[in-house]
């Protein structure tokens, strides 16, 4: 954030989840008042930086501050989102802002969760192009229409907002792959250049990998990139059903 050059200031009550397992203390919500500009909107991440100026020990991840690196997924007044592109005007209610870590994953410290589970699920779907075409030193041709099929899929930033909002993911994290990984599974299934479609579908065929999704759509409503994992999951289900017939 650029420092705030403004005259008009108002006070916001911010409440931040704090936890450091090393101290032996239980998690608690830290309440603070921060001064924010009243004549312009700032982002939740900016508000966190203002809080951190008061208490430098508050820990959260952040990097690009423009919604492309996926570091700062967090639970903001009850809803998952990216701190850096969520304006206060969208989420603050009754002058209150409550920030918690993404739900359903172990907390490392404060707003920082352990993403190992999430990344492992991503790795399980073999998130890379598999092609048996021989490398001829040129591009593999792809039509504009085939390339269009990847739009809405490849843009995922692995922020984890969707999977950690998904009840099926909370309950079966070891078996259900979760919306983010499934979206990427569908990204490679849909790529005209990939030659491993059948193997990929084989891998997803068991009762849990895909079918634990009950279409609750939590994932869609929180994705900060406007992606639609539910739709991708449904497409995979359709393909599996069609194959079985």
């Amino acid at each position, binding site marked *: 954030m*650029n*420092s705030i050059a403004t005259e008009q200031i108002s006070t916001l009550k911010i409440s931040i989840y704090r936890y*450091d*397992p*090393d*101290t032996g203390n239980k998690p608690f919500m830290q309440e603070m008042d921060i001064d924010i500009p009243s004549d312009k909107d700032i982002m939740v991440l900016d508000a966190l930086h203002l809080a*951190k*100026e008061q208490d*430098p*020990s508050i*820990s*959260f*991840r*952040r*990097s*690009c*501050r*423009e*919604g*492309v*690196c*996926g*570091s700062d997924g967090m639970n903001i007044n009850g809803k998952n989102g990216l701190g850096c*592109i969520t*304006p206060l005007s969208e989420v603050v209610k009754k002058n209150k802002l409550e920030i918690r870590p993404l739900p359903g994953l172990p907390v*490392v*410290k*404060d707003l*920082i969760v352990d*993403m190992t589970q999430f*990344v492992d699920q991503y*790795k399980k779907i*073999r*998130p*890379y*192009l598999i*092609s048996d075409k021989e*490398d001829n*030193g*040129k*591009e*593999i*041709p*792809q*039509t*504009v229409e085939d*390339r269009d099929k*990847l739009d809405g899929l*490849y*843009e995922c*930033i*692995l922020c984890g907002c969707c999977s950690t909002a998904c009840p099926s993911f909370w309950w079966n994290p070891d078996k259900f792959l979760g919306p983010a990984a499934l979206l990427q599974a569908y990204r*490679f299934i849909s*790529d005209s*250049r*990939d030659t491993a479609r059948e193997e990929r579908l084989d891998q997803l065929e068991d009762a849990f990998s895909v079918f634990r999704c009950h279409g609750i759509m939590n994932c869609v409503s929180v994705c900060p990139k406007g992606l639609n994992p539910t739709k991708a999951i449904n497409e995979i289900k359709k393909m599996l059903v069609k194959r079985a017939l």
Partner: protein
Amino acid sequence: MAMNGNGKALDANSLPVKEYDGIIIGGGGSGLMSSLQLAQSGMNTAVISKVFPTRSHTVSAQGGITCAIASADPNDDWRWHMYDTVKGSDFIGDQDSIEYMCQEGPATVFELENMGLPFSRTEEGKIYQRAFGGQSKDYGKGGQAERTCAAADRTGHALLHTLYQANVKAGTNFLSEWFAVDLVLNSENQATGVIAFEIESGEAYFLKAKATVLATGGAGRIYKSTTNALINTGDGTGMALRAGLAVQDMEMWQFHPTGIHGAGTLVTEGCRGEGGYLINKDGERFMERYAPNAKDLASRDVVARSMMLEIIEGRGCGPEADHCFLKLDHLGADLLHKRLPGITELSKTFAGIDPAEHPIPVVPTCHYAMGGIPTNVNGQVITQKADGSDSLVEGLYAAGEAACVSVHGGNRLGGNSLLDLVVFGRSAGLHIEESFKQGIDIKDPSKEDINKALRNINRVNISSDGENASVIKKDLQEIMQTSFGVFRREDNMESGIKVIEEIRARAESLHLADKSSRFNTARIEALELLNLLEVAEATAISANERKESRGAHSRDDFPDRDDENWLKHSIYFKGNKEISKRDVNFRPKIVQAFQPFARTY
């Protein structure tokens, strides 16, 4: 175990060691290209990154990767790309490196595509290429070229995720969320690895290696207003300087014409490549006056200066007359949706504007470091001996924005950084592989060598009194912004240098109040500040010393280029804070060297 925390100092005697053949510091485009090469060679390597690799700043790159793959124009030629790059560099780019990059480029881009990179496509099913600034056909004689390969306006995201995926496939070993502190050099000035700690636990290690690659990215956060991520703090450059090594051309900072006013976030030059243009408060397309041929697609330094002149002369936009407008609405919502979807999103979020309807408020914003750690085409780090000759630092490599193989010289052309990352990330990997085959002989460091590398972090760990790093950082960014911006002048720079000296004194005694071990982001920010400070001071002193205007370095008091004295790289060491010169390479292997001429667009 050696914990960061509890106010105690770390010591070589109790520091655990992890040993590798090679370690790569950085999981951005350059680091991941090196690691891919090494993983495929079966060596015992690790990539260490202070953020999960796909969170590295390469993910933010928008417009594309420039390369003569002859998709938009079947007659395109890597030599034309080379000519543009040499001219763009204002002739202090090394021509052996530029030649290597432009010639090797196409094979590397096709390889990325084969790895799965979802490039946009042409009607013939080839990789889509768009126009970018400073691009020409036929050595400047054939008009505007379209040479930048793009995945919509999310090329960096597509590239970084693809490289990460390829590394997952290849089984690369990641130390994700580890922070590198300082290089360990032995008595023979060979690199033997790095001190680093696992951020989650706070446990510190000596990561010992026969080859160490610095791929730590940019340092745009030395300025108050920048397009760079918050993590772009020049850590590798700081490490090199503290290890007594040279840095090169640090005065050369690119100010990108179109940072969103007030937010600093970038909108790609690809906007102008797709037909957008800049206007002043009178609605005039002013670039027609400054660059009659290339107009809005002149080189970035030229466009940024023109915008600043419009603002200084009172033709800026907005209530403070302090920015310009980028007009895109005439392109139509369809094209914006297809080719510039990310830009549309960013403008809505950060400027509250839909570019399909209104122009975007933009201002030149610090974007890219052309300077950095000098290397040869193999990524081997070069330092300068007392007599002014080059010497290689054995065991040490650098690649990407942290390095200065000098393909960008005084001004980088758009899309050339991503190409630089993958070409030289690869060449460093190849050289390490080859060296291992030949056998590398690196002497073990002594306890004192290791303790030397622990000095900086220990100072922070045992600090008991002083200012908070974030306060000092703000002052540093402020002075860099006011004294070392687009236009520079001696008196202003000299007072800036004095302020930086004072800031250094404050930073020497900064206070880390929170001494906890686990995921202590305050500790990281304190260490990052010390790196920013090294980069800022190197920039300031180099800028004051280069008494001419060239590329992005523009001085009111020396408005002309001075080839007689300054057709040279500048070299800076932290020790004596003095500048020396180094020859620019004019010996490409295949083509004839391009000789300097007046640079107009």
